[in-house]
């Protein structure tokens, strides 16, 4: 997934990749026209659910727009797979009550106006972006939290094994890390592993 720089309300739409899943060819053509005019790239079209899954898994688009009447699988299930496996976001085009979709999947009712669908797409992409960067931040934070834990633990191991105080243990690790050109994090893990059984 490319880095998209959206802000809600921006007129400059970065080219996001979209896959359309709809069994009706004139619906597909109309939607594709609309999306292309708005600056999006329609990467692929699928006429049924298995095909949509295959194409989505091969291309990892930024968004999948699927019609609730798509054949070859339940809409809720297919949308759930695509979002659940973190392949892409899904927007379902619903008609009446056909095809129940869980709440965490975006949907709009047909018929929709051009303005409606375009602004919904924009909102989805913006939030997707924010979500992606928050996720990234969370994983960075998790990683550094884990490193700190490991360094503390390794320090404890050295203090016990070598009978030295905390400052000295830390200093020893710093020196080793520089001498061996490995990060404190990796060194800490190595120390923990080496003394695990003792």
């Amino acid at each position, binding site marked *: 997934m490319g880095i998209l720089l959206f802000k809600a309300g921006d007129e400059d739409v970065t080219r996001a990749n979209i896959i359309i899943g709809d069994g009706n060819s004139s619906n597909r053509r109309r939607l594709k026209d609309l999306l292309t005019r708005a600056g999006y790239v329609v990467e692929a079209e699928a006429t049924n659910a298995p095909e949509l899954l295959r194409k989505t898994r091969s*291309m990892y688009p930024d968004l999948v727009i699927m019609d609730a009447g798509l054949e*070859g699988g339940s809409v*809720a*299930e297919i949308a759930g797979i695509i979002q659940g496996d973190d392949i892409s976001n899904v927007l379902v085009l619903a008609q009446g009550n056909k095809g129940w979709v*869980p709440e965490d999947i975006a949907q709009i009712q047909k018929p929709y106006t051009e303005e409606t669908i375009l602004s919904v797409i924009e909102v989805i992409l913006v939030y997707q972006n924010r979500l992606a960067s928050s996720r990234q931040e969370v994983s960075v934070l998790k990683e550094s939290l884990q490193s700190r834990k490991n360094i503390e633990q390794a320090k404890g191991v050295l203090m016990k094994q070598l009978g030295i105080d905390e400052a000295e243990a830390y200093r020893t690790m710093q020196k080793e890390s520089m001498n061996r050109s490995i990060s404190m994090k990796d060194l800490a893990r190595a120390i923990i592993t080496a003394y695990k059984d003792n």
Partner: protein
Amino acid sequence: MSDKKKLELIKKIKDNDVRFLRLQFTDIAGVMKNLAVPISQVEKVLDGEIMFDGSSINGFADISESDMYLVPDLDTFVIFPWRSANGKVARLICDIYLPDGHPFPGCPRTNLKRVLKEANDLGYTMHVGPEAEFFLFLSDEKGHATTQVQDEAGYFDLAPIDLGENARRDMDTTLEEMGFEIEASHHEVAPGQHEIDFKYGDALHVADAIMTFKLVVRSIAQRHGLHASFMPKPIFGINGSGMHTHQSLFKDGQNSFYDPNGPDQLSDTARYYMGGILKHARAFAAITNPTVNSYKRLVPGYEAPVNIAWSGANRSCLVRIPAKRGASTRVEVRNPDPTCNPYLALAAMLSAGMDGIKNKIEPPAAVDRNIYKMEDEERIALGIGSLPGNLLEALVELEASELIKGALGSHIYEKFRQGKLEEWNEYNIQVTPWEVSSYLTKF
């Protein structure tokens, strides 16, 4: 069933927000059956109080004895790692009991336990390592399976992406998350054909694992817009799918097939076991190769065994002894295919092997030449028999074998025979495209 274990399970279910329990068992035909129970029923499930109508399951019971109970094996609890629209789902594999508290004689899992216990009374524990092959086909616009293979379909312009490989990788990770230890996972000989091998284990656990494995492979394939099929020979002219079954017997924690001083470093136990397998192969074929289609795989030329012989390396033989020795010493029986009911197949093969051990059946000499290339007279001179040519022949052989019938128990055997004869007769009255194209204009 200890209360501690139950409480642990209930905690796990709560912590993971599991919404549904799937109670699984395998019918005589080898098809996994499911009873989905909402989590509010968990206490009843764990106490073995869930009832179902056995007469609605093919080949299980008559209407007069239809009430049956599902008693879960708590060690089989696992949460499915994939998400579904209804929240998380966990499963338990169950044994089937009658209302009077006795195990149901038509339950293949209970039957395997019985046969394993007989071997256990002589000190032996059976270890099994299966190698199941399958095809990944494209699903069509209705979500139904086709026999169109993805790798050859030329379907995508994005050349480097192989949907099958992706799906298989996903299967590997899912299986690993469910506690499987994957030993090998690779593309097989035919286009669209794959194989995933998991680590050997005790027979009951492996039979459960084979059933779980098939479910996972199918479910993940579906999530990739593909259809996984374990049909033995889905396409004429290319290799079919087998399930080579590696077997060994352990005694006092040691592999009893290994003897550093024996011929080929094999123990007498190993040779006799193999002798039993070779002797009874024609009789257990109906169990290890139970469909009409199974026998279309067992033809010369496609790495599937036809001839009843053994060898060290020769893959045209029924039994192969892989080169590894020590704790890994084992016999590989190459005819089973993944349509077999693993509980019945392991019970039948173990009984055949144990008969070899009890009666000290010497196997014939090893055949290290490609049997496919031998002339008939030569094969007859060497005393190399062949597997049954079709399901009917296999059923006749089974009927004549008290040993293998005994391994199934009379209830399972009777239902199996009825079901399979029906299957054969239904097949036999079909007019196939081959017949039409061969005879229509000729006569």
